[in-house]
């Protein structure tokens, strides 16, 4: 049921914010396959999300290890509004990455609920999660995770390709535009190995924006970068927030706190609100 509801949302909407954020010339009446996720839509459950983009309810994650059960998250409750820039801070092993993996559906909770953009994503199966992620979420990893054999444009177009969100002939143009936005268009035809780490992270951000998601989640996005480059990456996130995208960044870098509109700290799997 949830899957069908998501399908209706995904395939039925017309993105208005898409034009705002990306300055794309899209006809008002053109049917697009990407998600109009910035505003509530027909069929979308307000009661589940209560108007928030992200809502975590009593979230628990326990890892089973040879040494015994390890509780990574202990009953997390968190709401994130649309257009927020949320920083999740914490020491190594505090549970930051586990939390982000719950929101991005990369991992499943032991108990509790994860409602993102109106969908109870913890109930989805792997394929439903993949579809949902491709259309609602952009993920930025610490180690960039670009596909080594593809050039930068192709790395950005591949999410569109899998979710078939833009006409085939327009994808390259959109990818170039996104690479311009992150300031790396001149390297568009290079492969990831031929650019620096900071440049790769910019490409990863462009890829995260490929399907125009309402939410971008970044896991230690500057963990592998020098401080100047890290600052530039945070500038990009700030710009996205200014354009209406919700950004959630996990980091142990205090610098992110200065950029975020809100900050939560995780210690031993529990949230301390600031």
């Amino acid at each position, binding site marked *: 049921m949830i899957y069908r509801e998501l399908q209706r949302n995904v395939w039925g909407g017309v993105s208005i914010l898409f034009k705002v954020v990306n300055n794309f010339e899209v006809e008002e009446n053109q049917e697009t396959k990407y998600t109009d996720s910035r505003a509530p839509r027909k069929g979308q459950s307000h009661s589940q999300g209560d108007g928030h983009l992200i809502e975590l309810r009593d979230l628990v994650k326990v890892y089973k290890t040879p040494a015994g059960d390890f509780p990574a998250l202990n009953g997390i409750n968190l709401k994130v509004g649309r257009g927020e820039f949320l920083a999740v801070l914490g020491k190594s092993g505090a549970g930051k990455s586990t939390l982000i*993996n719950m929101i*991005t*559906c*990369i*991992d499943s909770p032991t108990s509790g609920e994860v409602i993102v953009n109106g969908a109870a994503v913890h109930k989805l199966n*792997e*394929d439903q*999660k*993949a*579809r949902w*992620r*491709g*259309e609602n979420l952009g*993920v930025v*990893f610490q*180690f960039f*995770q*670009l*596909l*080594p*054999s*593809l050039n930068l444009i*192709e790395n950005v*177009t*591949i*999410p*569109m*390709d*899998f*979710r078939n969100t833009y006409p*085939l*002939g327009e*994808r*390259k143009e959109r990818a170039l535009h996104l690479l311009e936005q992150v300031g790396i268009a001149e390297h568009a035809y290079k492969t990831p190995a031929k650019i620096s780490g900071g440049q790769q992270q910019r490409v990863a951000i462009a*890829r995260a924006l*490929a*399907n125009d998601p309402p939410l971008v989640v970044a896991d230690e996005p500057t963990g592998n970068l020098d401080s100047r480059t890290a600052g530039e990456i945070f500038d990009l996130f700030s710009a996205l927030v200014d354009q209406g995208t919700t950004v959630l960044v996990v980091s142990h870098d205090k610098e992110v706190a200065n950029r975020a509109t809100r900050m939560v700290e995780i210690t031993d799997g529990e949230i301390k609100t600031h």
Partner: protein
Amino acid sequence: MALHTRWSKIFKDMWSYRSRSLLVIFSIAIGVAAVGMINNAGRIIQRDLYGTFTAGNPAVLEIYVSPFQKDLAKAVQGMREIESAQARRVESASVLGRKDHWEDVGLNVLPDFNAVHVNQYNLQNGVSVPGTREILLERQSADKLGLAVGDEVTIEMADERRYTLTVAGIVHDVYVMPFALLGEATGYISMDTLEWLGEAPYFNRLDIVVTGNKFDKDHVLTVGNLARDRVIEPSGYKVFRIGIPGIGSDPGEHWAQSQIKGFLLILQIMGILAIFLSGGLVINTVSAILAQQIKQIGIMRSVGAVRHQISGMYLINVLVFSALGLLIAIPLGLLGSWGLVNFAANFLNFDVGQIDLSLKVLSLQLALGLLMPVGVVLIPVFAGTRISVYNAIYQNGLGGEKEGGWIEELLSKFRNLSPPVMLSLRNTFRKKARLAFTIVTLTLAGAMFIAVFSTRASLTKQINDIGRYIAYDAALSIPGGANKRTVEREALRIPGVSLAEGWANAVAVIERVDGSQSAEVDLVGLPGDTATIDPLLLDGTWLIAGQPQQVVVNDDLLDEEADIRVGSEIVLKVGESKRTYQVVGVLSKHLSGPRIYMDYNAFGKLTGRQNQVDVVRVLANPGSTSSSAQQELIAQQLEERFQNAKLSTSAASTRHAFFEKFTDVFDIILIVLLIMAVVLAIVGGLGLTGTMGMNVFERTREIGVLRAVGASNLAVRSVVVVEGVVVALISWALGAFLSGPSGRALAGAVINAVLKADLSYKYSVSGLFIWLGIVVLIGVLSSLVPAQNAARLRVREVLDYE
């Protein structure tokens, strides 16, 4: 044209890993090409050889009759069970060929060359009807003798008179055994010419085509017996033999059909094996690609790819490999079939038409080339793409493997080995499924390789066993026979010859207890203390001098007459003469058909041909045979002396020539088999190369750790190379184990196909050790490049590895 990015990824990945892509493409190509080659060659041989054979109305029955006139053929053809009957005279003579060397020739006389209606030959050059003092030559005979239309040819008849004939035409006759195989030329002359050659004008053979089922052996033989009982014998003629043409063939089949069928079947099995190994290699490589790209799969899923899209990508990838493999396999298979068919055509004397590819063979190749690789990778692809994003991105890498099982337990007991060697041994068993595939591939290749060598050893043993029956330097047949003492005295006058034995031949039948008679059996009379035969006794003893009532039979006779055994009494009948003998020994088969050996004097009493011999066998040194050159010299002198003494004009044969003839035939067959074994070895080697490459790739971090703790280039290389060699050695041991039964099966099939004889098996120990050398070499070579790549890694690169 815009291309979906995921397809672009496939092509870029293929290009990035060119050697691995080529590995899969070639492994598909080799298997599919082998199957295409064998099936297409079989089809063309079927079309061109069997087509020509069937088109000429082949005789399904040959009846050898006492001299008759052509009216008998008409009378036989009048039977409603018989469609056609053609009279033929077959007469032996000698023909002067190249280098003034005399060759045996079979002269065929037909009643009407304008109306040949059974075993029709095709005119190649000149005229198809020979006039008086003219001869037509079979094309392979003409070629080997160096004769063309218009040339004069010298023929010598049994009475040593020589005649000069003109070659009027060259014909192609698929019904006679080719000169290259039989060592006897074939010519066609008119009855007038035969009379001019001093021979009486009569026919001695009927070539029969029956009505009804021509392919039913029982039916055909029944019709032959009917013809004998109803027409031939009531007309006053005697039937000597009723038989099916060919070497153990069924009626209506080309004389070599069962051998060709057997040989193609062996190749077919090897082709299927090649496909099987290719399949294993494809599974191994694609599994390795999936293992290597597991993180990429996670990334693609994280950006929205669903499972069927990723599975589709890898299946399309395999399809592209398959398509490229087919691009190589189809022309390669066609080229192979061209080679195989031309080899067969030269050997069996038939014309090859167009070398084309039938839709059926093409479909088979397409089906195998496309469906096999995709089919075999379905499970690994679906299993490999099932992984969750979390596991793909965060759980993939160092330390992600399960704890070891019993093999690791066992290895832990070896405490005196150096750490790098121990690491190599442990690495070998880390990816057990991959190791299993690699070992299975190499093991099968090894088993087949050794089996080919065992087949060679078995064939050699078989020929050596047969060779024990021709333990002479040279032998000469004396058509019509001659006095024993004269013959042996003449032979002993040849310088260097110290032993000469005259042997006599006859045809006998065994009269059974119930009064019925056996088929005709060769009867050989020889000195009781013969030194030119070293019989291989299966049971009982050899003839004892001074015991004239004893006979020794061969195993072929026991196939026909199951009741005979050592100690049995048998009644032999030659003409009207009949005597009882005791069987004292059973000999091995030696390509002679059913045969009985008896003392020369007893033979004389039974046949009434006292003091007459038909063959002389000579030896320079009793107890051992001479060199080939010496044998040739003795043979030449034997021919000259017997010609001068007006005893025989036949060509002498040597023991060496006998071996050479068989060795030539077998070597060609073995080369074809060896090529297939090498193909299998290449596929096995490619498998190991792929596995080692993947192993090194997956252990990049581990190698970095080794380097970080001070491992030298040599140490890193050694760890990889030793692992390759260990895999090779395991496969060798298993291959050695499997090569026993596989070698026996292959050798049995080849010997049965080629010789129509039972197996005389010999395991090739040299093959076992040659394969050991090859497989160790494969192990080293296939791990050298991955080892070099591993040694090139720097600690910093490894830290960057993500």
